[in-house]
C-alpha cells in the first residue's frame, strides 16, 4: 500500500516550516534522494514474489533455471533469498537490470510446476506520483517519519548560500537520519521482533560453505 496523502502532507508541512525559503520542488527532489538512500541502506522495503519453476521433463531435458520477476511498485534492487515449496533455501542470484532469478539447481521432482518464493529488497523509482512525490510504501512514513524528515533537512541544509543552508545542523540531522535507517534495517532483519536473533535456516541444511566442492553464489539465508 502506498503512502497516505495525510502522511505525505505532514512530512512536507514540517519541512516547509523548518526550511524557510525552500521551494516545494526542491523538497520533493531531495525527498527522492532521501528515500533512495533509506531503502538502499536498510533493505526495509521488501516483497515476497512467487514464481513458477519448471522441472526437466521429456520435452525439456535441460530445465530452465532463469525466471524473470517483476513488481508493481518501485524497483527490485537485491535478492534476499529464495525458498522452495518446503521452505528450504535455494541457491540463486539476481540478474539486473531486468530482474531475473538464476537458480543454481533446477528442481528434480516430477511435478508440472513448483512455486518458489523469492524475497527481494526494493527501492523507489521514477516516475513519481502526479504531485511529483516519490511512490513509497505506507510503512516508511508511519514508522520512520523522524528519520525521513531528518534526512530531508540534512540534504536541504547542505546546500550553501541558500536561506535554509546550515552545514552544522545538516551534520546533526544526518546523524539522526543514519540512526533511522539503521533502525529500519534492524527491524527488517529481525522481522520486527525484540530480543530475537535474526532468522537463519538451521545450519545443518545451509549451503553457504565450500565443503564438498560445491560453490554457492551469494548468501541464501535471511541474515
Amino acid at each position, binding site marked *: 500500500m502506498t503512502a497516505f496523502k495525510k502522511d505525505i502532507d505532514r512530512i512536507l508541512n514540517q519541512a516547509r516550516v523548518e526550511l524557510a*525559503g525552500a*521551494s516545494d*520542488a*526542491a523538497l520533493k*527532489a531531495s525527498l527522492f534522494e532521501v528515500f533512495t538512500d533509506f531503502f538502499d541502506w536498510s533493505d526495509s522495503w521488501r516483497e515476497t514474489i512467487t514464481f513458477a519453476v519448471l522441472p526437466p521433463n521429456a520435452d525439456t531435458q535441460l530445465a530452465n533455471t532463469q525466471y524473470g520477476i517483476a513488481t508493481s511498485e518501485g524497483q527490485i534492487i537485491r535478492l534476499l533469498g529464495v525458498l522452495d515449496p518446503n521452505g528450504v533455501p535455494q541457491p540463486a542470484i539476481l540478474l539486473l537490470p531486468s530482474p531475473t532469478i538464476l537458480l543454481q539447481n533446477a528442481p528434480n521432482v516430477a511435478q508440472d510446476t513448483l512455486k518458489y518464493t523469492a524475497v527481494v529488497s526494493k527501492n523507489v523509482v521514477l516516475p513519481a506520483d502526479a504531485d511529483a512525490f516519490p511512490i513509497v510504501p505506507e510503512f516508511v512514513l508511519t514508522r520512520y517519519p523522524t528519520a525521513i524528515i531528518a534526512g530531508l533537512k540534512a540534504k536541504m541544509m547542505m546546500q550553501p548560500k541558500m*536561506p535554509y543552508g546550515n552545514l552544522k545542523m545538516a551534520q546533526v540531522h544526518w546523524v539522526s537520519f543514519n540512526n533511522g535507517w539503521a533502525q529500519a534495517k534492524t527491524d527488517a532483519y529481525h522481522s520486527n521482533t525484540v530480543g530475537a536473533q535474526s532468522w537463519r535456516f538451521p545450519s545443518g541444511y545451509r549451503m553457504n560453505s565450500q565443503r564438498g566442492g560445491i560453490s554457492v553464489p551469494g548468501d541464501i539465508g535471511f541474515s
Partner: protein
Amino acid sequence: MPQATPNTALATVKDYITDARVLLQDQVSPYRYDDGSLITSLNVTLLQARHVRPDLFVYKYCGEVPQFATDDSQNTSKVWIEPQFRLGILFGLVSHAYSRDQEDVQDAKANEAMQVFNAVLTGLAIPPIKGAA
C-alpha cells in the same frame, strides 16, 4: 481543519502586468510602459529567476523557462511560480521596466526593486524600500 482558499494573487500574466502598473504608477492610458514591454520584462525576469533558483522550474516547466507572448496584454496564461516567490518575480519585472529610464531616481528604484527580487528568491528578509534621494 479549515481549508484555506488557495491564494491566486500573481497567478497569471495579466495579474503581473496589472500589479506592476500600480508599482510603476502607470495606470492611466496612454501608458509610459506599454503592455508588450512589461511582458518582455516578465520574460527576462523569469530568465534571471531560473539563474538564481532553478528549482522553481523543475517540475511545471521541466527545467525550461516559459515565454509569454508580448502581443497579448490580456494574457491569462498561468505563471507557475510557487506562491512564496511571486512577489520577487513582480519586483524583478518592475526593476527591468525602470532600468530603461535615464533619471537617477528611476535608477535607484530599479536597484531597490532588484534587491527585493534577489531577497525574495535567495534570502528571507526583504530590504526596506527607501525614498528617493
